[in-house]
């Protein structure tokens, strides 16, 4: 028996801008490429709608490398309790993200480097990403490592004199292992450290004594995530994918995420997937539903409080020789356990995509 590499942490880390991982670089021919176009719509009963458009293109270069680039646009419209409680009418905003990435085969490794930039009327961001992937033991084992640096410049809408910064370092270590002919297991460890302005310039906290203050968050935050996954074939045309994520950070938040997805191939081209997901989060140490007295750190962000959400949905895909289509519908229910202004929220997320490859 050959000694397999034992690594404490693992999972196949699919960097958001490295789709080249999905297919071996050396298996592609020069000029092979694809274009993806997707549209997603998020709408909830808290009067918030987000329409996300994504176009992504990739191309195999004459060298062992694949280049890809994408543009993503979010159109946000909100009259949520947060917006209305600040006596603001419905608020709209567009966010544009541009990204490019190159993945190359170097010696026995795949390396990638990428750049992202995004902008809204009150936020500018620049991200640099690098990644490594190494397959071992006849590709039974895959080790991956990624690092990202993000610089965020934070403003306040229409306010030329408000300027803050948030710097983020992120890293991910992953391992995947073919357990047998039908089973893939993996685990990921994600670490993120952010320093700077974490609050929202639009949120205010009012204490029980009537004292109001802008939101005050700590200047630093260290975040950890461990994700375990098992993907196993069932029968001759189906699979089950089970994932669990444990998250904890220096603000005292502890969360659990569980996802189960069942995929069934229907014939040569059609797949259907059913998925369920659950999330539970404990509150940050400094979060209070009501502050009895002023504290050094205070927040009005319900997403730092205790809440859970549960959702599920279905996805239908059709894959042809050159063309692929998919359509997805998910429903999510959120329940906030320590936020009086909003106890629950129901959201629907629909998305559709088309992929043309050559």
């Amino acid at each position, binding site marked *: 028996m050959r000694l397999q590499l034992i690594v404490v942490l693992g999972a196949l880390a699919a960097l958001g801008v490295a789709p080249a991982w999905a297919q071996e670089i050396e298996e592609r021919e020069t000029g092979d490429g694809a274009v993806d176009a997707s549209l997603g719509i998020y709408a909830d009963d808290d009067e918030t709608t987000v329409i996300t458009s994504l176009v992504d293109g990739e191309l195999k270069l004459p060298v062992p490398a694949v280049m890809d680039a994408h543009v993503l646009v979010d159109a946000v419209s909100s009259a949520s309790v947060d917006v209305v409680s600040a006596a603001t009418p419905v608020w709209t905003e567009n966010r544009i993200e541009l990204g490019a990435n190159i993945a190359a085969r170097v010696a026995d490794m795949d390396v990638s480097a990428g750049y992202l930039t995004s902008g809204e009327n009150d936020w500018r961001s620049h991200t640099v990403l690098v990644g490594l992937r190494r397959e071992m033991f006849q590709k039974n084992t895959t080790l991956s490592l990624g690092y990202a640096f993000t610089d965020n410049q934070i403003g306040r809408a229409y306010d030329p*004199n408000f300027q803050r910064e948030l710097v983020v370092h992120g890293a991910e270590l992953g391992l995947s292992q073919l357990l047998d002919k039908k089973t893939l297991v993996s685990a990921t460890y994600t670490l993120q450290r952010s320093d700077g302005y974490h609050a929202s310039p639009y949120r205010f906290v*009012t204490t029980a004594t009537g004292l*109001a*203050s802008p939101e005050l968050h700590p200047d630093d935050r260290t975040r950890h995530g461990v994700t375990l996954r098992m993907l196993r074939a069932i029968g001759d045309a189906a699979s089950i994918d089970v994932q669990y994520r444990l998250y*904890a*950070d220096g603000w*005292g938040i502890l969360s659990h995420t569980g996802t189960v997805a069942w995929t069934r191939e229907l014939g040569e081209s059609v797949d259907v997937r059913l998925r369920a997901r659950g999330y539970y989060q404990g509150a940050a140490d*400094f979060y209070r539903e009501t502050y009895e007295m002023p*504290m050094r750190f205070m927040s009005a962000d319900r997403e730092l409080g205790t809440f859970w959400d549960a959702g599920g949905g279905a996805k239908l895909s059709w894959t042809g020789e050159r063309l692929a289509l998919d359509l997805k519908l998910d429903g999510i229910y959120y329940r906030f356990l320590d936020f009086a202004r909003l106890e629950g929220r129901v959201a629907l997320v629909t998305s559709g995509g088309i992929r043309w490859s050559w």
Partner: protein
Amino acid sequence: MELVIRTLVAATLLGSCTAGLQETAPAPELDRDCFRCNVQPVLAARCAFGECHASAQRPLRLYAVGRMRLDVGWDRLGAPLSQAELDANYEVSRGFVADVQTDSMLLTKPLDTRAGGLYHRAQDLFGDDDVFLSTADPGYARIAEWIAGATAPADCTPTEEVGP
């Protein structure tokens, strides 16, 4: 299972917790008589309108004679402010006083952006001019003096010099 989770969490959080997450931070004890005589008149004259801060929806929520009231009926809106209303205005105002006094939103929000202030929707309501066009405005000066620790005698009379 809980022991396992706590072990994992403790191991991964080693050295990464932010200190002082539950420290209290009382707002500065500013002079109440100075507020009553020098600041409240400015807030009433320059800020406490129905479209502005005489609204329960605003973080800076202000009670004023003839405008929003806390414990006075609709038929007595002209009655002097009660002690509870004065106390509420004092509490909500001192909550915006930061450690660096010139950064207090009580000063930076109503100050015109061309004079270094933050964006304030009043600028749109008042035809591109904010409440205080410069730091020389008497209303700005009175608030700044109060934040800096100014005091007033207990029998002081509310000022009428509140600026333009």
